[in-house]
């Protein structure tokens, strides 16, 4: 598939904890920590789509924001073009913002209601120093077309668009500055299936044409499978398994991945592996393997010792004591 495995972005042992600010914690005087992301490492190769899946609260959004330095990591490094983003000064980081674009689930809240689509699209260009109005407009119109909108939409306001169309505007705005990497946080989760597939097709075509590197985050496993070359599975802020998409679906090795995939209702009849219990609170993550409280195969060892993420097949890494 991808010939060059040049990492364009390398995430090394990234962790992020928040201080919990609930009333109880304040009263007790003890500071508690929410461990949102714990010691996560992976890399994005140039031109690939890396998918991150995980249930709600598994730390997907926090990971994205920490990579982009929108929140400061507690520890770890993010290497982009031989620079550690976590060590950069604010103005140094600002220069790199253009290269790393974030696309959200709901672009509506981030689209200024008083500006036309044309103004919205051209703003990032202006910020990044494209002075000629004609060039900005040409670029905006070209992107409108690439995301499947029409020239007439250039003069319209965000409220005149449907959810799917607004998502296209959000995508166009992020891509207009020719980023190296696009990070998409649940870009299709709020959309109906029929619209979702339109957007996925557009994203896939754009990615190919622009040789864009993408970090694609979603809780919907069939969606992530469709778009990604490789996939990482997060649980309670930790990477449980990572592999190229076809291997991962042919043979998921981690018990969590297996149960997660079996819960996906994609209209085909299949055996489900039921998971008992709830997702534990990141305020008090389980000892040892974070998945042991729900794992059907957990032993004493799992309670006591955290398994290392290790390569068990070519390109497939798993954090489980028992996978051979």
């Amino acid at each position, binding site marked *: 598939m991808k010939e060059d495995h040049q990492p364009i972005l390398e995430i090394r042992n990234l962790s992020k904890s928040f201080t919990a600010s609930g009333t109880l914690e304040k009263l007790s005087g003890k500071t508690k920590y929410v461990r949102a992301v714990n010691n996560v490492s992976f890399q994005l190769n140039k031109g690939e789509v890396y998918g991150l899946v995980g249930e709600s609260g598994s730390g997907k959004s926090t990971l994205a924001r920490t990579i982009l330095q929108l929140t400061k990591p507690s520890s770890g490094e993010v290497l982009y073009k031989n620079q550690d983003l976590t060590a950069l000064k604010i103005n140094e980081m600002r220069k790199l913002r253009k290269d790393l674009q974030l696309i959200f689930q709901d672009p509506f809240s981030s689209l200024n209601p008083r500006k036309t689509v044309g103004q919205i699209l051209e703003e990032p260009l202006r910020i990044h120093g494209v002075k000629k109005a004609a060039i900005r407009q040409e670029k905006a119109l070209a992107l409108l077309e690439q995301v499947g909108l029409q020239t007439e939409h250039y003069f319209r306001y965000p409220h005149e668009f*449907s959810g799917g169309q607004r998502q296209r505007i959000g995508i166009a705005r992020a891509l207009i500055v020719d980023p190296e990497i696009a990070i998409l946080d649940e870009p299709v989760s709020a959309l*109906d299936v*029929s619209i979702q*597939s*339109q957007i996925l097709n557009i994203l896939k075509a754009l990615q190919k044409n622009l040789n864009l590197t993408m970090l694609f985050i979603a809780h919907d496993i069939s969606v992530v499978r*469709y778009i990604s070359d490789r996939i990482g599975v997060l649980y309670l802020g930790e990477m449980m398994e990572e592999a190229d*998409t076809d291997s991962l679906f042919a043979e998921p090795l981690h018990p969590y991945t297996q149960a*997660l995939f079996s819960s996906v*209702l994609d209209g085909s009849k299949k055996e489900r592996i*039921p998971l008992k219990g709830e997702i534990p609170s990141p305020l008090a993550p389980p000892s040892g393997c974070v998945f042991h409280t729900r794992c059907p195969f957990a032993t004493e060892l799992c309670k006591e010792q955290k398994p290392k993420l290790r390569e068990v097949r070519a390109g497939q890494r798993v954090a489980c004591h028992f996978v051979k």
Partner: protein
Amino acid sequence: MTLLKVEQLHTHIHTNKGRVSPVRGVSFSIEKGEVTGVVGESGSGKSVMSQSLIRLLDREGNIEYNGQIHFDNKDVLALSEAELRKLRGNDISIIFQDALSSLNPLYTVGNQIVEAIRTHQSLSKKTARKQAIEFLRLTGIPSPETRFNSYPHELSGGMQQRVMIAMALVSKPKLLIADEPTTALDVTIQAQILDLIIQLNTEFEMSILFITHDLGVVREICSSVKVMYLGQIVEEGPTETIFNQPLHPYTKLLLASMPKLNSDRTEPLPAITGTVPSLSNIPKGCSFSTRCPYATDLCREQEPPMFSNDGQRVQCWLYDEEKGGWLD
């Protein structure tokens, strides 16, 4: 035995911008013990239709219904406010997607269930408490005695939904309307709640109207399914039939556009072009004609009737009655 029969139901809402009709001539029936799914994209009228069945929207005023709703020999559209309250409390329960906003944040979940029990039966607080704990246990809440004293916000989304289900069950309703009860939940938790709903259906012989936009969920738990588009049921039938040989182009496209775990990743996903038209701009003829790849002049001019074939019904001009399938 037919529990619910709906005929040519129209729901009109008068707003300050004029009248809209989110439900436009819906007919179907639900048998005792049947689990039936209603699918459709956002805005297709699933919630308005299901709330119309127990006239929940009446509270907002300016609602007008046409047609017939018969539930267990009662003419729902003719009931008084007091009779309606009884119907909603005893015979039909409804649960929503967002459990947290349906629960009172100021009371423990236990007390809310006790309240619900005591409005149906004159029981002492102590007996009602015992029953409430049993309902919590029944819905799979671990250590229900302790959870009885929890406030809604102290519970996870899955637990809150279990509490809502427990509350909906206290009256042992004949029909449970579940409006996207698992949409906000994670897949592993969704699987648990779906198992619970099926268990309750078997145990209590309760009919369930399950509303969702997720066709995968329908296939998992529903024996029959109705597909809604712009306030109409455009196709309905037994779940397996609809999945294996959908007749309406909309159903076909919906099924095809769902990414599947075994689909070819190199092919573009089939998509439905365009977007759902607004209620103030309903197309002439077949309401799907503006997005249908097979639409003809007839489709754009005249609304198709509902054709029936062996328990499957479809509202589409392309259906050939003689062949029992598609026109070529």
